[in-house]
């Protein structure tokens, strides 16, 4: 069980995450939604301890994550896989080695430093890549990959970690429909079959509604919505994203109304 208690993160004077309290039971698939800049990425980063909360605590079971140090901290991170919005791959390494980084906690440092991965480890990485249709590219340098290919490498890295919880920051932003489906199905699958908790930032409300057990809506760093997907009515979504009534939420049919007429949107013409 993951429990956030009054977690806050400030940058300079600005509060990117503001007094967030949440309890995520083990095995839940939680979608985090909200406008760009709402603090979703910052929240996930704190759970993985890539940033320390300015205030508040994060607990996993009885362990206070925010107090972990050294090996215990590394172990927590190994149990809590993170998929980054901007992939965070090592551009000058090849795909396979990037994925192997997900196993690094379990491999003795000396062996890892020399890239002496065992055949089993390589096979595992390659299988993960295969499941994402990326095994062909295992030898290519990460910085020459297409956007979606990079994203899938990042996902494979998280999968080979065999984590207890997965934090996915817009894991399908750069993916085509087929790969979107592959990835979301994979997340759903490991969530349902292995009881792994998944916290996933999503921009697509359709996907959020279809895949998640629960949705958390953020705005300006605060949690403003927390309920089952069915409760996310169009009205609520409109509120969350600050849309006007009459504008369609989700991936919408064509809108050819005069856009200039909307306040806060100053394109010329019309």
């Amino acid at each position, binding site marked *: 069980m993951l429990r956030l208690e009054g977690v806050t993160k400030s940058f300079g004077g600005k509060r990117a995450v503001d007094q967030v309290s949440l309890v995520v039971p083990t095995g839940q698939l939680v979608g985090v939604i909200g406008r760009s800049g709402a603090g979703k990425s910052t929240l996930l980063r704190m759970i993985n301890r*890539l940033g320390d909360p300015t205030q508040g605590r994060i607990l996993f079971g009885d362990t206070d994550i925010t107090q972990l140090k050294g090996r215990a901290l590394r172990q*927590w*991170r190994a149990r809590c896989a993170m998929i980054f919005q901007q992939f*965070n791959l090592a551009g*000058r390494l090849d795909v396979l080695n990037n994925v192997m980084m997900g196993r*690094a906690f379990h491999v003795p440092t000396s062996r890892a430093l020399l890239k002496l991965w065992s055949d089993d480890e390589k096979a595992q990485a390659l299988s993960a890549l295969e499941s994402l249709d990326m095994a062909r590219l295992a030898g290519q340098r990460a910085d*020459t990959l297409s956007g979606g290919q990079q994203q899938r490498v990042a996902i494979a890295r998280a999968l080979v970690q065999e984590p207890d919880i997965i934090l996915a920051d817009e894991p399908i932003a750069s993916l085509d429909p087929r790969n979107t489906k592959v990835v979301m199905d994979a997340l759903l699958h490991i969530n349902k079959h292995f009881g792994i908790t998944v916290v996933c930032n999503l921009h697509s409300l359709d996907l959020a509604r279809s895949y998640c057990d629960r949705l958390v809506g953020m705005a300006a760093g605060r949690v403003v919505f927390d309920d089952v997907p069915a409760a996310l009515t169009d009205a609520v979504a409109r509120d969350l994203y600050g849309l006007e009534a009459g504008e369609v939420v989700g991936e919408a049919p064509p809108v050819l109304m005069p856009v200039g007429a909307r306040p806060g949107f100053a*394109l*010329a013409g019309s």
Partner: protein
Amino acid sequence: MSSPIALLPDAQLRPLLDAYEASVRSRRWHTLLILACVAVAMVLSSISAEVSIPKLLDNIHRFPSYIIRLFQLENGRPVWTDVAEWFWGLPRWLRLLGETLLMAYVGTVLGVIGAFVLSFLAAANVAPSRWLRWTVRRFCEICRTVPELVFALVFVIAFGLGPVAGVLAVAIHTVGALGKLFAEVVENIDMKPVEGIIAGGSSWPVAMRFGALPQTMSNFVSYALLRFEINVRSTAVMGFVGAGGIGQDLIEAIRKFYYSDVSAILVLIIITVSVIDTLTSHVRHRLIGLQEKH
């Protein structure tokens, strides 16, 4: 075609412009302040250094005089009229050059190994602990501030005359100098890949090896080779401990005004440096992956 962007009315624009100006103002003052400080420091230094531009311009015609003399043989003819005479010492110089390269190699390699390890401990963005970082930085400072000459002297008294003392002195200095430069390269990396690896629970060395090192490698190589070049020259200092090499012959030739010898030895060194530079350019470009032009 008119602009696809409608300019906001002034009333709406003003506050935005002001907000922007306000947010960059302090930064701008910062920059101006730094620039002003540098300018003042330059002026004060110029006074202290007795800079006199008129003197420079009046006499700049003498700039080539020494250089021209460098290219004259003892009998006053230009060096290229008698290349055999110009390079009369070639066998000896080549031997010395070889010795020098060997000494510089050992000094540089030992130093680079030390600096490599220390740099990650000393870099603010990745250092595992604050006090360790502080200690390492001070240690590097001592290593590079105590002159090679002093280390050499101490080692001579301890280990006796010979290349060992000189090489060790060079190695220690290299640790200090490269430790700092390497650390600053590490401080300038993109942290995203490091985060990506740390987030998987990797140990610190692994994160450095795969997240940081690939980004720093080409800079490390370029600094290490520059240091190698510098060390080739600083072996001249080792003449002091009985292991001079080509540097000592060069200094001797300069001091004794054996002009053609100076130019001949310089030509050898220039060739060596150019060869090193060319070879390593290839290595670095492969590391960066600069195949693509734009």
